[in-house]
């Protein structure tokens, strides 16, 4: 097979002005933090991008007090239509500055510019636009005639979709009339801080959005602050459990969006080429740093060899490398720590008897990288079939009957998402109804939209983000 080589097509980083230092964003101002500053690094080059202040307990307290003041005096009493207009402004500003956000996201996170440009940033803007419209229509959300905001929301988000997860958290909270204290992930604080500038350009009243970067300690301070009424977290199941424990016995409301180990089920009647595209999108989108990634491929036994061969052929054409190159399919692994975890779990794959396959090709010398990886001969008891790898690693298993496919798909403590590939509508609907997962993609995978509620069953968490259902997380009603 001949290989088409592409000339490099790098996106310019000149559009974004990465400052050498960033402060905390509290009460509408950038201020110094009293926590130890963190250095945020470009995972593709290991270059230090900026030094970012972090929030101590006192800083978090300051942020919560600012949020409470803003809730009581400004944002709570404001006309709902005006709250909506601020959110529309923010949506427009995100669109106007989309290129800047995309470049900064790729620099800080390592994801391909194609994805930050075409997925993360447009979807973030869409989330604000969608929720802006809800602000003056909450009495139609099905929560009674006069639903009320909860107050101050403490929100902790992950590093895999830094701006998009901010949008999923901040947009519904604000639309419902709450104010927020948000802690971005330790390794990816920059787009949240650029978002703070957007809030200033929108003339959002001070204190409505407060952004306090930091590591786990800062997150703990946010979720355990006594004047926080609502906690929302996206991240690992392990941390989710500790947050649920910390919130126990309080009156704080909690929603959790945690890990996953999604099954992607391919039936023998599925068009192989389409399914292969979906499998690739399911597990290699964002380097597999996706809680709903299709990390377990369940293939009907009769087509296993054909599907795996076609998949390997397709993976051979994926381009791994410079995230700023517009041709790149897989970017850098976000951190050395995450790379170590991926390596540890894939090592288990081999020692437990699965067969590892990776495409040919060199990885860049600097930065953190992992090749797209496929394990075959995987048994449901293997750690690579049970644990969330959160990397570009696919475990392939087989099944014979639809019942066996469902049983294997549901054989996990997680329940965030699932995929099914078949040309037969009745089979799709039947299998879909039996899968214990919060999102099911039929003949597609990893699609997201603000109108579509997203969230898990079982230990993938509770509560929904997006849609009318997602508003319930930020409102108290009579119903």
């Amino acid at each position: 097979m001949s290989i088409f080589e592409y000339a490099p097509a790098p996106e310019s980083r000149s559009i974004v002005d990465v400052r050498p230092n960033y402060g905390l964003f509290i009460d509408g101002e950038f201020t110094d933090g009293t926590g130890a500053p963190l250095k945020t690094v470009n995972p593709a080059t290991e270059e230090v991008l900026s030094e970012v202040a972090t929030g101590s307990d006192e800083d978090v307290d300051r942020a919560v007090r600012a949020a409470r003041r803003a809730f009581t005096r400004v944002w709570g009493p404001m006309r709902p239509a005006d709250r909506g207009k601020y959110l529309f402004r923010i949506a427009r500003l995100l669109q106007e500055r989309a290129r800047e956000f995309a470049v900064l996201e790729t620099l800080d996170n390592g994801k391909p510019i194609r994805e930050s440009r075409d997925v993360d940033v447009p979807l973030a803007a869409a989330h604000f636009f969608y929720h802006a419209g809800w602000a003056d229509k909450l009495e139609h959300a099905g929560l009674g005639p006069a639903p009320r905001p909860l107050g101050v929301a403490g929100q902790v988000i992950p590093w895999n979709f830094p701006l998009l997860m901010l949008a999923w958290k901040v947009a519904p909270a604000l639309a419902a009339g709450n104010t927020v204290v948000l802690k971005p992930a330790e390794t990816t604080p920059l787009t949240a801080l650029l978002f703070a500038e957007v809030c200033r350009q929108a003339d959002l009243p001070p204190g409505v959005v407060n952004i306090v970067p930091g590591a786990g300690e800062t997150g703990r301070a946010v979720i355990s602050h006594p004047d926080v009424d609502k906690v929302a977290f996206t991240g690992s199941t392990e941390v989710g459990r500790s947050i649920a424990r910390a919130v126990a016995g309080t009156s704080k409301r909690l929603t959790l969006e945690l890990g996953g180990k999604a099954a992607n089920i391919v039936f023998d009647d599925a068009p192989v080429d389409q399914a292969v595209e979906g499998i690739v999108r399911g597990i290699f989108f964002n380097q597999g740093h996706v809680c709903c990634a299709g990390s377990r491929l369940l293939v009907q036994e009769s087509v296993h060899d054909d599907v795996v061969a076609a998949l390997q052929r397709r993976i051979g054409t994926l381009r791994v490398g410079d995230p700023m190159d517009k041709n790149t399919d897989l970017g850098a692994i976000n951190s050395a720590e995450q790379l170590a975890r991926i390596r540890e779990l894939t090592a288990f794959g081999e020692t437990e008897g699965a067969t590892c396959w990776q495409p040919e090709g060199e990885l860049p010398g600097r930065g953190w990288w992992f090749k797209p990886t496929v394990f075959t001969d995987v048994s449901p008891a293997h750690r690579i079939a049970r644990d969330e790898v959160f990397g570009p690693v696919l475990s392939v298993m087989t099944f014979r009957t639809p019942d066996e496919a469902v049983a294997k798909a549901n054989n996990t403590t997680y329940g965030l998402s699932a995929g099914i590939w078949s040309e037969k509508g009745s089979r799709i609907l039947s299998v879909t109804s039996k899968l214990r997962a919060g999102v099911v993609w039929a003949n597609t995978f990893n699609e997201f939209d603000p109108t579509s509620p997203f969230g898990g069953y079982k230990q993938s968490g509770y509560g929904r983000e997006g849609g009318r259902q997602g508003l319930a997380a930020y409102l108290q009603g009579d119903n």
Partner: protein
Amino acid sequence: MSDRLTVRKTYKLYLGGAFPRSESGRTYEVTDAKGHFLANAARASRKDARDAVVAARGAFGKWSGATAYNRGQVLYRVAEVMEGRAAQFAEEVAAGEGISSSRARAEVDAAIDRWVWYAGWTDKLAAVLGSTNPVAGPYFGFSLPEPTGVVAVLAPQRSSLLGLVSVLGPVLAGGNTAVVVTSTARPLPAVTLGEVLATSDVPGGVVNLLTGDAAEIGPWLAEHADVDAIDLAGAPAPLAMELERSAAGTVKRVLRAPAEEPDWTADPGLSRLRPFLETKSVWHPIGV
């Protein structure tokens, strides 16, 4: 009065559609509000709780997979059968709660009406809580409510029948199966309710009623890996916090209890249905 000696009932557990004694062989004395002996109720053990979870999990597929119309008819049937035994329920409620027979009868009537209310909800939940999602792309998207799974219910301590039905009804209407720990001091109406459920086409295992002590059995249910949610209605404050913390280990959905046991005659709305329903969003491409 006739001089006939009455035949007393043995109050047992309701587990997997049968009425076993506690595997532990333990019982405890149940008295009326004035302290007079009423019965020796079974004191359920950890093992009984685990058996009940197995039964509830086993029954989940059939109950959650039944049509909403069917589930509604079965719950309505519970109301029908209860109506016929209203006098017996009223007697047990009056004795246990120390209220007048007319107030007890009103509680029973309200409990029967609560089943009717929830029976009517089964086939409306999808329309009221679900949605079609106008996503920005060539996909048909919809979201449906689905039952959470096996729900552990610590029933209210004070209101032994209306409170019990008020917490059990929404769990069943949503398609979940239940493991219930009854009011500790007032367990008798719950056992009689078990007899009603057993003769109302509710499949065995869908409801499991354990008489005993919530403080003893609750912790096992809160940490049980095959329990998906817990309703803390009948847990006193210090226990409730401990159970919520324990439930976090398996990311259970937790319905907290208010500080005071509420007035169960109030319109419940959807407040007890939502906590035990998940939302599943489905995407399918539109094309030719």
